[in-house]
């Protein structure tokens, strides 16, 4: 589209992201005495540990791009997406700039397990900022798309009775019901059976056509190759490579096979 002037939608400038984890108490620290000793000696509590998940990521994403994020498990891909969405704070010294409000499409969106699928759809849509009228309009479409009613009326049963595939499909269906300016997709394509995957890939393509920029985190090389022309390879929180998908994939594959 705008080849003459490329419009940036996401700019990451030396972004560091640190998780603080409470309650990771080791076997030798569980006695009251050792806790007390720690307080007296002013030692930093080991119950609060810091995980430096992303170490200084810098890149620019432009409108019309689809960018794949690859890397081994625990390399900071999902964390980076959450920071782009503004859900996790970036440490001082760096920043992530975004146009509009990027939306994260993840399969981890926690919904309430004790409620029926239908109420979760309502709740999820409202949490994404839809009006009750829009929600009413969309509920049936979302349930239909998720396909949870293919084996009887499951949408009125509590979500804790769903299989993991079913609840993942419902979550994806909820998240994909909204149009997004910048879309961040986290492993969403890997959910469900082959039939659902086909449908969801089509939905992602539709969303992509409407969205300015798409980020995709996936372990499926095929879906990255199919949808993304540019890829970023993260390893241990550091960007190892950033460029055309083919080149980055090759580097990544040689790294993994080692």
């Amino acid at each position: 589209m705008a080849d003459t002037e490329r419009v940036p939608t996401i700019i990451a400038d030396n972004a560091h992201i640190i998780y603080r984890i409470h309650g990771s108490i080791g076997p030798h620290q569980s006695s009251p005495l050792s806790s007390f000793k720690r307080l007296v000696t002013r030692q930093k509590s080991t119950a609060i540990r810091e995980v430096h998940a992303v170490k200084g990521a810098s890149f620019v994403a432009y409108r019309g791009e689809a960018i794949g994020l690859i890397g081994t498990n625990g390399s900071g891909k999902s964390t980076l997406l959450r920071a782009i969405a503004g859900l996790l704070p970036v440490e001082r010294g760096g920043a992530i700039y975004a146009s509009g409000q990027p939306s994260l499409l993840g399969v981890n969106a926690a919904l309430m397990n004790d409620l029926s699928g239908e109420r979760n759809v309502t709740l999820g849509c409202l949490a994404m900022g839809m009006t009750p009228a829009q929600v009413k309009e969309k509920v049936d479409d979302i349930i239909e798309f998720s396909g949870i009613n293919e084996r009887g009326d499951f949408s009125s049963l509590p979500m804790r009775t769903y299989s993991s595939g079913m609840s993942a499909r419902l979550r994806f269906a909820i998240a994909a019901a909204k149009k997004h300016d910048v879309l961040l997709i986290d492993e969403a394509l890997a959910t469900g059976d082959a039939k659902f995957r086909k449908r969801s890939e089509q939905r992602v393509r539709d969303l992509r056509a409407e969205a300015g920029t798409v980020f995709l985190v996936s372990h499926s090389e095929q879906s990255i190759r199919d949808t993304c022309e540019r890829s970023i390879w993260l390893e241990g929180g550091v960007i190892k490579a950033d460029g055309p998908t083919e080149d980055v994939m090759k580097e990544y594959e040689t790294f993994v096979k080692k």
Partner: protein
Amino acid sequence: MAQTTVVESYTGPTPQELARKYGLGTAGRLPSLPEYTRQLWAYRHFIWEFASAKVSAALGNTRLGMIWQVLTPLINAGVYYVIFGVLLNTKRDTDNFIAYLCAGVFIFGYTQSVVQTGVQAVSGNLGLIRALHFPRASLPISIALVEARNMIASMAVLIAIVLFTGEPINWQWLLIIPALLLQTIFNAGAAMLVSRLGSKLHDLRQLIPFIMRVWLYGSAVLYPVTKYTEHLHGWKLAVIEANPVLVFIELIRHALMENVTLAGSPMLLWTEAAVWALVVGIGGYAYFWRGEKGYGRG
């Protein structure tokens, strides 16, 4: 789509300049307080639905379901009746002690349950916070809303008890509406306050039961308020009489009961209640808003 882009390292404008040129905002920027309030208002339907969802989730797997909303305060009143009315027979100090006691128990219980659940409003919903974008104040506010809805059932039970123990109905009863409204504002502020504190200070949860117990004894719930004037004076009495929950309890007793000795004149009590509601309501809101962007960190 044949655009390929190789951006290993770009030269030219710095990231900040580039961001400013194209009008990009920092992801996770703190909105101004009016802007935040507007966002929160736009999410009012979510807050309401989240509150109802919480109630159904909590009662959904019980056999009696929603009946518990009425049963809980009834059983609560029954327990106190057996202990104080039958076993200890504390009737001689105050006229209509049962109604006096129940008003205290229910009004104190309202603030107590908001504080107890509010402490976990943020730390208990980290999954939701890390997955979706919404003004985080929705969470403590919906907790205050859940308890406000439970309070309506409790009030019905309380009114039945008061009537049953022989208090006459009069126009003064309508005063319970503004009194409960002020308490609800106070509670919402308190919920936001403790939820931000609880999100950082996980140890607070362990302390809450003790804090609440001290608060209970300082709120003239189980014994008449005249006990304080008899035994305390100076700053200790001043502290006790400024206790917001004591003020709310006294207002309800004043509204529902005929011959009741209050801690102060009704005018003074109403002023105190309004000041507490405004200070804690607005203060709690502003305090919660300041931390808005850090809640995802855990």
